[in-house]
């Protein structure tokens, strides 16, 4: 077995990550979280640091299409994965449908939690488990909004779930 030199702390570990479609070969210390790598080393500051303890969801990104809290992942443990941040979801000229819906529904006040809300909503849509407004709310509970824009956030997500989805949601609510 080859476990390297386990006794002395290894200064850096080589890691290959695909971030928003771009390959990055990096040498990073093992204590660097994905969140700090994104914001510090790669200057992708769209992903926000809120609590830094997995309690607020502001740092939510997609790893291989799955939403996680980037503050609770050592980047070295994600070798070979594809990461999507808010910068990879849409551009100012071509907004992601969720970004457009958040604008249309005024689904924020200060905007600090918004990148995490939108990445989380993108994960929720691809998971496909939310079928009603009640389920959207439950499955978005990992993202706190201290301005309290929850009603409009749920509206924006419902909107993107589509006309067919809205019918289902209305029926379920009645």
């Amino acid at each position, binding site marked *: 077995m080859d*476990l390297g030199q386990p006794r002395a702390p290894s200064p850096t570990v080589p890691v290959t990550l695909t971030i928003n479609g771009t390959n990055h070969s990096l040498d990073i210390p093992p204590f660097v979280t994905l969140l700090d790598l994104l914001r510090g080393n790669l200057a992708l500051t769209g992903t926000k640091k809120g609590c830094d303890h997995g309690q607020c969801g502001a740092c939510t990104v997609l790893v291989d299409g799955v939403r996680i809290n980037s503050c609770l*992942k050592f980047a070295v443990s994600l070798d070979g994965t594809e990461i999507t941040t808010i910068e990879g979801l849409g551009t100012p000229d071509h907004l992601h449908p969720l970004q457009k819906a958040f604008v249309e529904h005024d689904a924020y006040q200060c905007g600090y939690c918004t990148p995490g809300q939108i990445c989380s909503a993108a994960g929720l849509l691809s998971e496909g488990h939310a079928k009603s407004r*009640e389920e959207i709310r439950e499955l978005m509970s990992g993202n706190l909004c201290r301005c309290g824009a929850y009603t409009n956030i749920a509206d924006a997500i419902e909107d993107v779930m589509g006309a067919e989805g809205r019918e289902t949601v209305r029926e379920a609510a009645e």
Partner: protein
Amino acid sequence: MRQFSYLRPTGISDAVAALAAEPTAQLLAGGTNLVDLMKYDVAQPSAVIDINGLPLKEIEVLEDGAYRIGALTTNSQVAYDPRIARDVPLLSSAILAGASPQLRNAATSGGNLLQRTRCYYFYDPSTPCNKREPGSGCSAIGGINRIHAILGASEACIATHPSDMCVALAALDATVEVTGPTGARTIPFPDFHRLPGDHPERDNTLQRGEIVTGIRVEGGRFAAHHSYLKLRDRLSYAFALVSVAAALDLDGDTILDARVALGGVAHKPWRNPLAEAELAGQPATRDTFEAFARRLLSGAKGQGHNDFKIPMAEKAIVRALMQAASGRPQVQSEKRLR
């Protein structure tokens, strides 16, 4: 954060050897608890052994029809597996009652068993805590103890186990599969976690170098009559003040078999198999369940701020058993109690 060395073994035996060789090493799976504890300087591993490359990510059906859930399956993977949702809905429901979607996407089955208490003094290295620093004292006894244990506590520790998943696994008589330096063995779920006694620093009965590889759980039997009822300070994304995993096997209105485990009230999921056995042959009525609830809570003792948990648990046990008996389990996205 303190420096640590980082290892990435690809086989179970390599991981076991690395863990056995360095007693101050810790395993990294989903990281949702360990990374947090390292940020608070509560966990100080000299080495982090990243086991995400180990082949423990499957849910298998065994010859006897039971399920073997690999230690590295994620909470979401297990909860939404159509076979688990159909045959072991109590487990599915308990998992979905816990944490948030993001955390469930990262957290693993093995990690769920090994997560540490959320006692606020355990998390604060500036305060005495026998679990974090044996012999230093317990700050929760006589301190702020609203979330603490009412059953099985000791003079050294009144912390609770924070898991929802484990409460369901306890009720379902699951088995934990582990591999260590001397080979593999299985641990019945009630023997996996331990009460604090004089050694609250030990959460479980794993031996040095042992790794949880999987969880075995029977399916089908309690699929029709079950409920996971979780009571907490907010309606989602909070740890349980009191939770109940209830499972019944009924013949009409007569109880054939009953299993009830409590979460949020003790250092491990709390059961009383003798009291459960006495339910066999009795009618599935509120009177029966009220008498059982009192029996399950016998010896319960509040610490001051958490005295409310005793009547809350009594009512929750009855409610969860009524839900189970009627075949209308609590739905985790529904914010009204059924």
